[in-house]
């Protein structure tokens, strides 16, 4: 088993990065790897509840975040400063996440076998 860490740094809509990252996380979980899923920068918007992308003819891919627990993905983090910069708090989020600092994120990266930023 390897530790695969994903840094999701893009907003949920506008580009396909968020979906691409989520798909990699789910594939890694299916193969029963240790996954760290870190939301940072604009990526923290993916976590916010209440998206209604039907208005822009986009699929609500972030609804699949609810399935992470079923896939056994437990290490889900949000970079605290990214939330703070956007005036967001845990109360705005649709799934439980752990807050992490940049220092904690660095140590997660250091202890990972593979790091993917999307």
């Amino acid at each position, binding site marked *: 088993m390897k530790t695969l860490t994903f840094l999701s740094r893009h907003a949920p809509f506008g580009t396909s990065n968020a979906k*691409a990252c989520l*798909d990699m996380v789910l594939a890694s979980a299916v193969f029963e790897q240790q996954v760290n899923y870190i939301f940072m920068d604009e990526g923290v918007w993916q976590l916010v509840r209440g998206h209604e992308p039907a208005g822009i003819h986009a699929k609500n891919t972030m609804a699949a975040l609810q399935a992470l627990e079923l896939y056994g993905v437990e290490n889900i983090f949000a970079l605290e400063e990214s939330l703070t910069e956007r005036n967001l708090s845990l109360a705005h989020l649709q799934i439980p996440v752990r807050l992490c600092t940049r220092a904690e994120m660095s140590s997660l990266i250091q202890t990972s076998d*593979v790091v*993917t930023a999307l």
Partner: protein
Amino acid sequence: MIISVMVTGSPVSQQSAQTALSFCQAALTAGHQIYRVFFYEDAVQLGSALNVAPQDERNLNAAWSEFVKQYELDAVICVASALKRGILDDGEASRYQKPAANLAEGFDISGLGQWVDACLNSDRVVSFGA
């Protein structure tokens, strides 16, 4: 060292696919082994045999295709990314009743599991284009 490479950037609007090719060539020259190259998102456009480059510009698709054939590399195009962008092998073209297939020589179409497998079997996985 055993290395796998993931490419995500568009070959026509970003530099990353050329950077990835240069990296792979340098890695082989330095005596490393490439376990797999995985093309994801816009980088799957590299798998098209139908692109036309202007005469005074490099045809990166042709360069990648030649490279993976020359070294017999495992070059995998992500199926979910490919179908959306119209990159089809014979099997997919027939399955979805499309008028033609366009996958260039040297590439295979497969799933994200191939990327996870590459992570498990490589000492390093290097990404280009994110």
